[in-house]
């Protein structure tokens, strides 16, 4: 091609940090335990936190990542087939979501964004519930207290406040569970995230901020948003931070475990920047080719999170035909469950819109419901020639 230059999407910040010679960035070392070619890289501290990971667990992480990628592909197809109004793909971010999602205890509480479907999958949310809101069938897909994961936040960054507040509640309860907020690179530019970090630090709340730096806030490259590494923003709040390779499931797992342990022991909040890449569009209504250099996508395809874990399994002799078949069968089954569940989802009744507004009876809602009921009845009259 014509030029040999990289695109504007801040690729250069994604090599291990000690090699980066960018004066605008000051960040700590990028921690990587698994190279893009599937080589296991040792690290004096992070290794300790994953020493218990068995071969079997490695295989199950592989399965998880393949399955959530498949969920993502199926949901994207369902949107294109008119079954969903919209879908925000997570393609490329599987390692961050599985590495962090699988580090959690069941009594920890997750506050996710719209893109964190892989985390929701880890929490045990039934897959059809992932698309319920995108289908317009409900305002949200699941009962947060059943799976200890809040509904997905569309507003950018708001959930970080919810997480900090929840964490302060955990302190009041004297429990040792942790609140975990997920957000993207763009959210770190929002007031909510900054306020959440101020409170988290002030109260030393047991909260972990997991920033999935996927390099693009819709069409805005991360380089334009911050002149320092995102992880370095945390130090301004007095919050310890880590930068990990977000396409490396082991590095993310290890970092999340470190942060969770600190929070459980009263050590306060931690900020994790997981460097990953949104390989698909922002949502199914977006066309990234209009603002993104295709070379960038190619660069990141070479760092694919699933391919590198697969390569590690291969190196360790764990990648059998039987494993591949089992993973494929599981992915197929989950995709079918998603499709069937989505297409056969019962339509809500008009009056369902009043459900879940208040947990207790409310006269205003009752009044509105009554008005709406009578309004609906006015149609049955005209449509059926007064047969009512």
């Amino acid at each position, binding site marked *: 091609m014509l030029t040999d230059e990289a695109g504007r999407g801040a690729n250069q910040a994604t090599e291990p940090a000690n090699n980066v010679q960018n004066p605008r960035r000051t960040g700590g070392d990028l921690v990587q335990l698994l190279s893009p070619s599937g080589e296991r890289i040792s690290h004096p501290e992070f290794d300790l936190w994953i020493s218990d990971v068995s071969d079997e667990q490695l295989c199950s992480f592989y399965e998880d990542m393949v399955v959530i990628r498949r969920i993502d592909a199926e949901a994207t*197809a369902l949107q294109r087939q008119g*079954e969903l109004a919209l879908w925000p793909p997570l393609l490329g971010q599987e390692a961050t979501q599985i590495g962090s999602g699988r580090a959690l205890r069941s009594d920890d509480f997750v506050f996710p964004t719209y893109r964190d479907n892989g985390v929701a999958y880890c929490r045990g949310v039934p897959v059809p519930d992932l698309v319920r809101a995108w289908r317009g069938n409900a305002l949200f897909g699941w009962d947060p207290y059943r799976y200890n994961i809040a509904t997905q936040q569309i507003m950018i960054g708001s959930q970080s406040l919810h997480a900090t507040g929840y964490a302060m509640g955990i302190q009041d309860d004297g429990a040792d569970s942790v609140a975990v907020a997920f957000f993207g690179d763009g959210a770190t530019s929002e007031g909510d995230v900054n306020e959440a970090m101020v409170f988290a630090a002030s109260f030393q709340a047991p909260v972990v901020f997991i920033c999935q730096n996927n390099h693009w806030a819709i069409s805005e490259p991360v380089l334009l948003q911050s002149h320092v590494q995102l992880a370095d923003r945390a130090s301004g709040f007095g919050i310890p931070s880590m930068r990990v390779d977000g396409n490396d499931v082991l590095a993310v797992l290890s970092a999340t475990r470190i942060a969770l342990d600190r929070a459980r022991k009263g050590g306060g909040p931690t900020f994790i920047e997981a460097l990953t890449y949104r390989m698909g569009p922002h949502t*199914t209504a977006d066309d990234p080719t209009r603002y993104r250099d295709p070379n960038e996508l190619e660069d990141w395809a070479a760092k694919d999170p699933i391919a590198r874990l697969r390569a590690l399994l291969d190196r360790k002799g764990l990648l059998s035909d039987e494993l591949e078949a089992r993973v494929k069968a599981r992915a197929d089954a989950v995709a079918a469950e998603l499709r069937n569940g989505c297409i056969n989802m019962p339509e809500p009744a008009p009056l369902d819109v009043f459900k879940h507004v208040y947990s207790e009876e409310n006269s205003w809602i009752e009044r509105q419901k009554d008005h709406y009921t009578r309004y609906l009845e006015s*149609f049955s009259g005209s449509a059926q020639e007064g047969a009512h």
Partner: protein
Amino acid sequence: MSRAMIKEFRLPDLGEGLTESEILSWKVAVGDTVELNQVIAEVETAKAVVELPSPFAGTVAALHEQPGSVVEVGKPIVSFEVDDAGAAPSAGDAPSADAGKPGAGKPAGGAAAEPAAPKREATLVGYGAAVEQGGRPVRRQRTLPAAVQPSAARPADTTAPPVVAAPGAGSAAAVVQSERQPERPRSTPPVRKLARDLGVDLAQLNGTGEGGLITREDVQHFAEGAGAPAAAQEAPAAAGRETRTPIKGVRKYTAAAMVQSAFTAPHVTEFLTVDVTAAMELLGRLKASRAFQGYKLTPLTLAAKAVLIALKRNPTLNSRWDDAAQEIVQFNYVNLGIAAATPRGLTVPNIKDADGMGLLELSAALTELTETARAGKTTPADLAGGTISITNIGVFGIDAGTPILNPGEAAIVALGAVRKAPWVHNDELAVRQVMSLSLSFDHRLVDGEQGSRFLADVGAILSDPGMVLTMV
């Protein structure tokens, strides 16, 4: 036994509130067996070009729309014959994501058209307002001048532009033409972009889409100058040990151009290797400077500028041998062609009036040209009218070559790779950044002297950018 049944797939809203999409191409044909989620079509919305995955596994029974047609959301676009037993769900109901939306497709029952009397229907915003004819969501209706307003409501599905009786006789068409475009002509953003790329003025077009909408096809037809009808698209023959691909598109164009050029213009090629260390240092300084922030500066940018400056002193290289007229055409402007490897093959789009551009503007133009070419979206207008070309073989790590002239041009410069090499600098052997330049020119027009002076000028600028002061 299982029973076959027909399932329709209706065009969904592909991007948060779109009312229509254009079918760009079908990836399947009637009779094809498709799997669930197999890509069946490429569709362009006002927001993006997307692929449509099949919602069923089965056989394609009918394609209801032609490529190029703009289809309303909710209209059936393809029918599948589906094995009843094995049919994937997706029941016969309209895609329910649309169901709650105002204006979403009414049941488009079977093949027969049904819009009879407007029905009173429940909506969320009013008391059963009358349904609009055509079922199309209310959209900014562009006002036409009273004189040309179609008398009644817009006819159901007129494909031809409204015919209007004009006063007088013969010149009526022209009058109507100018009158029926009170505002910006109706089109979609991607089509407007296409028109801009092709240099087509939308005001000159009659849209063949619904309600006079100008479609991608209209623009392309116009750009081709009422040229050949869209080439028939037949699938390449099945292959065994060899693959046979019909010669068409860019490949065909390239081949014809190369043959014509190589066998009409007597080529001479000259080489010059220069020490470009100073130019690379300059490049580094410019990149760091505030003025160039956000611009992509490469050796190509500087070399292109050097070529433009050298051309001013050696205009013969910016000319053309017009064999038919038996004239030499001296261009007093430069349309600078840049050879680009694209997904579809070699193309040489050019930057119009590059000689009038500052370095900043030139770098922006190069970036845009590159990106357009990479995206495979270079248009015939981009390719036409070049006056001289550059080919940047250096990006492939190549030093020199004997480039073939872009037909109609008198010169082409090949830029080699910038390499560190041992070089005599200040009478001592030093490691310097070195680059080879190759210049081919049409010897009918350009003599060795002129070609050599031009190449020496380009080399002088790249080895000592300060030399520009002596040239301009």
